[in-house]
């Protein structure tokens, strides 16, 4: 929670206990799991990216409030894009689950200071929501695998519609964020 204000991130880290420790271990382990799944899907990996991801994940452990997590996710995505050719591989579910765990762990690490004792209800809520998102990832994979069976030709209209949909969704999310911050 708010390392910027306390400015004692190292000290805070040393005070971690219970769920705080588990979350920090997950922040470190989940990108490694994503790398492993990518390697299993592609039979090879990019050493430079792998070497970069680990220290960045460690920075996320110390500063979960920072934007370094975004960089970790970006590197995992780039490695997947560059190395994996099979678009319907089930290992993508493994990477998605790893990224879900990483995202949930970083987010959860920011809501409470490391030494705070989490309640059972909080643990259960975060786990439940993560499982829902993992389920959504599995559904997406099923849809992608289904599409992959059919050879869909190039369609400019489809690309434009997709991009427009993404733009509208992004604007909707941005409006929501800006609205709250301006209050």
């Amino acid at each position, binding site marked *: 929670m708010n390392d910027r204000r306390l400015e004692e991130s190292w000290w805070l880290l040393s005070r971690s206990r219970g769920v705080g420790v588990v979350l920090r271990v997950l922040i470190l382990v989940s990108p490694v799991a994503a790398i492993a799944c990518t390697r299993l899907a592609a039979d090879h990996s990019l050493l430079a990216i792998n070497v970069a991801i680990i220290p960045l994940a460690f920075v996320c452990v110390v500063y979960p409030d920072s934007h370094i997590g975004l960089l970790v996710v970006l590197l995992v*995505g780039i490695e997947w894009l560059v190395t994996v050719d099979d678009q319907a591989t089930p290992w993508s579910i493994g990477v998605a689950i790893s*990224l879900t765990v990483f995202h949930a762990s970083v987010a959860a690490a920011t*809501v409470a200071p490391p030494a705070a*004792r989490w309640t059972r209800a909080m643990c259960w809520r975060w786990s439940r929501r993560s499982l829902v*998102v993992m389920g959504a*990832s599995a559904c997406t994979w099923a849809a992608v695998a289904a599409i992959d069976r059919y050879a869909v030709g190039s369609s400019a209209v489809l*690309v434009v519609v997709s991009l427009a949909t993404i733009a509208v*969704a992004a604007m909707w999310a941005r409006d929501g964020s800006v609205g709250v911050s301006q209050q």
Partner: protein
Amino acid sequence: MFAVVAVLARRPDLLVLGTPFIAAAVWAVLLRPTRPLGVAQSIGHRTVREGEATTWHIAISDPENRADDVAAVLEAPMWVDQQPVDGQVVVSPRDDGHDRLDVFIRPTRWGVHQVGPALVVASSAWAGFRWEAQNYADSSMLVALPRPAQFDAAAPAVRSPGLVGVNRSPRPGSGTEFASIRPFQPGDRLRRIHWPRSLRTGTLHVTATWAEHDRHVVLLIDALDDVGESEGIDGLASSLDITMRAAGAIAEHFISAGDRVALVVLGARGVQRVPPASGYRHLRRLLEAMARVQPAHSVIDDGRMPRGLGDGALVLMLSPLVSPTALQRAVSISDRGLAVIVIDCLPADIALQEPDDPFVGLTWRIEVLKRDRDIRRVREAGIPVVPWSGPGSLDVVLRDLHHRVAGSRAGRR
């Protein structure tokens, strides 16, 4: 980002990787709060004894019920312990059904401590939106009263001459004037038990008496120095710790005996004097005044006689006897004809300790020799100097003083 690349690069598998982020973002935006939370912080008790605990309350009001997690960090000042140890707590108001966070705080040393405000941070779903508050107006001053050491004095009271003690006090206390027979309470003297009534009723009863107004005790605290290391109530005590706890114990003893007690502080910033009065409310006043005493790092002493030293007052000076200023003050008060007892509050082990640095050790030995010389001079001036050792510390000197006063009265007759 994943979605854009998926579309442009014709890689639908990237959508699978992006789904967790898209789902979490949509979830967070859908459950975003639109109004800030209400937070009220308060302290359970503003005044406690050192070593006693109280609670820092953080009450949360979330009318929309959209705050998932509310965390707080209370940074405690020195000499204040917390439970949880780091003052970090978190709760889910909706899931746990709690709308408040509590941090237990325990002052480990007497004094006035500023506590709070706690930094309160609330997060919405997926920590998508965060709201924080730290209103410095919510901070509170926690007054930790010195915990009186154990003290009792069996010596007879030194009675002041004059008309003050002829009339009984309107309050019950230790006197000779019969007031009533009442049930025995812890702290009552055994010789006060009224056996006929106790045998008749089957429960112990004591004879209560009215207090007498004939003793005026002045506690003269030397706050010019604070010698030694203080580790709070659970560890080593500095000279000022011993002074305050002893002063509290002596004040409690004389107040419970129905006497009037005044407080004069030498050299401290802030409080200088509490006029004489009696009663437990006054005891509280004395302890609060003691809690606000700060050691004077420079000598603040105008050299004038402290006010409030009435004729016939028994002056109990509590001092580590390191500063010659305090000892000179004791001599000058004694020269006015007042009964003065100096209580040595230097920690017992500090005079014997040998610092690692040989020069510091040599300096300290010279200081101890000078201190012994000053104490000898004070004793030669007829002022008793006794080390503070809890119950019975003052018995011998009070008894001597009583004989001396009784002798002088007999001589006058």
